[in-house]
């Protein structure tokens, strides 16, 4: 049994401009110890997907249908206090901006210690001792545990965030753009830390990012998301060397390469308005291969080879 299985999840946001279909029928699964990269541009619904797994969506979001099966239990059906026991302890989360995700009036160590105290009924001293150990394991000296967040750099704060996410040894970590707010050198350190985490704790990681290259050396599999749907799933090799979906191909072509003299490729058009998304395949208005059927019907995810799925009419015999 997979650690987590998401079945046909549909999430909408109620906004003054209409209903935004942020996640529209997404299904995937993740195995124990597996790292899955969830790649998509801004507004593709990848962060919403991450938040819905933990049921941490903002009040104007509504889950229309679907299941999030974790260890055989549908998280979407759990009560708030049952969910609370899972959050942090079984599934934890790392957020994008370390400048805003730590409580400014709380010492960094307490972020970790309080979670230990609530989940394990630990006494304060024990919790702080472990908090310091965890901080050291992510490269922060124990004495900095008494610092307030503003006394640390962005990179250090993200390490603290990671420490809060791993302190309870969760089996699944959802990392939502963990490196996007950091500069390149620090990005690299954080990615190393995540890899280390996967090896040491045997945790599964969902790495949400808009940057394909971030997933390249850490992910086992990559999901390509566009306009609330998954367009392609495959191993890193499938996605990088044999991309099938025209969108994935476009994405890869638009990664700048060192030494290349030719102009950078840009996928024509712009991301769809999600209050009124395109009919059929969501990508058809921007797709160079779009045909009649693409406008009428959404293509299902089909297998093109083992472990490689694509949702595109190009690969479906009719």
């Amino acid at each position, binding site marked *: 049994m997979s650690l987590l299985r998401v079945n046909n999840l549909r999430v909408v946001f109620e906004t003054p401009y209409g209903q935004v279909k942020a996640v529209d029928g997404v299904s995937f699964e993740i195995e124990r110890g597996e790292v899955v990269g969830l790649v998509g541009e801004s507004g593709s619904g990848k962060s919403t997907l991450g*938040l819905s797994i*933990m049921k*941490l969506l*903002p009040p104007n979001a509504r889950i229309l249908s679907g299941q999030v099966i974790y260890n055989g239990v549908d998280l979407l059906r759990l009560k*708030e206090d049952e969910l*609370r*026991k*899972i*959050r*942090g*302890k079984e599934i*934890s*989360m790392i*957020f994008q*901006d370390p400048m*805003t*995700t*730590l*409580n*400014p*009036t*709380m010492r960094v160590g307490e*972020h970790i210690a*309080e*979670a230990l105290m*609530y*989940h394990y009924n630990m006494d304060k001293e024990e919790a702080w001792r472990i908090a310091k150990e965890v901080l050291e394991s992510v490269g922060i000296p124990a004495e900095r545990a008494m610092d*307030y967040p*503003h006394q640390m750099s962005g990179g250090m704060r993200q390490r603290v*965030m990671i420490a*809060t996410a791993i302190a309870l040894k969760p089996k699944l970590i959802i990392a939502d753009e963990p490196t996007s707010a950091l500069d390149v050198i620090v990005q690299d350190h954080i990615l190393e830390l995540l890899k280390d985490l996967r090896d040491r704790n045997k945790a599964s990681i969902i790495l949400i990012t808009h940057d394909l290259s971030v997933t390249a050396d850490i992910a086992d599999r990559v999901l390509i998301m566009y306009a609330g749907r998954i367009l392609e799933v495959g191993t890193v090799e499938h996605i990088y060397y044999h991309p099938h979906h025209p969108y994935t191909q476009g994405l890869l072509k638009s990664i700048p390469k060192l030494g290349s003299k030719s102009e950078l490729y840009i996928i024509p058009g712009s991301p769809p308005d999600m209050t009124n998304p395109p009919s059929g395949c969501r990508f058809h208005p921007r797709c160079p291969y779009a045909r009649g059927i693409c406008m009428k019907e959404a293509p299902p995810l089909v297998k093109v080879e083992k472990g490689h799925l694509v949702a595109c009419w190009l690969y479906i015999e009719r």
Partner: protein
Amino acid sequence: MAGLREYIIVRLILTPAMVLILLTVVFLILRVLPGDPVRASVGPKVPEEYVQKIRHELGLDKPLYQQYIDYIVGLLHGDFGKSLITRRSFKEELLSRFAASLELALCSMLVAIPLGLSLGYLGATRRGSSLDHISRLLGVASYSIPVFWLGVILQLIFGIWLGIFPVTGGAPPSIKFRVPRITGMVMLDSLLSGDIEAFLITVKHMVLPSLTLGFVISGVINKVTRNAMLEVLSEDYVIAAKARGIPDFRIKIKYGLRNALIPILTIAGLQFALLMGGAVLTESTFSYSGLGTYMRDAVLSRDYTVVQAAVTLYAIIVAFVNLVVDIIYALLDPRIRY
């Protein structure tokens, strides 16, 4: 926490400087106001020689810088000068009025802060519920109801119909004379001297004016608390805390209220300062002899030295409240340091 100590020391040094600036402004404003205060106070029919005599007596014929020095030196010695009307020292009266106002302001805050804070907190944490609507309704009511009207209604209900509380505010004269003066605040003094009976009587007299003012002020605190809480509760660190499985109540207090306290404290400090001088309507309604009515009377009788002294006291209390608020800021928020 070396930063905190430095911060407090710097604040402590800055406060007297601020008070001096305030005092100078008060002094200058009263000198540049059109019209001769002495002439205005005695009326047009009094002969000029007599006016000159009074001016000389009060030191108003000296050059401006000399008057300023006299004023500041006098203040440092606790001398507020002489009243233009009675031509006698009014220090005693001023200080007792000041103490009474301070007492009323403190009691009103004792009503306003718990009421405003809890209503705002409940409104924000149960947004959209009927409790939230009630809290907002009470908030709007509190700052749209005229304070004297509310005072009169409370007098009518509790004073006349139910007869629980006296309709006049402040300790009755018999109590005032009975209780030894320690701080000037009768409630506190009676408690300090162990006169429980006097304390209870004074408390009874304080209830209605404090409720009236406290309710009016609570609306602002309620609104600020609600807004600040809503803002803080939508911060990323609140979602992050939820993702760690931290219990809801702890998130609301330690992550929510704790971070919302800064704007709440700011408004509470401002309201307190306002209460000190601006409680004229409440003081009139309850015939409470505080600084507000005293200043009103002084203004009406053009007793400029008394006005100057009252404004001076007011300036000092504002500066002091500011100092306290600044220090609490630093205690609440580790980012506030030099």
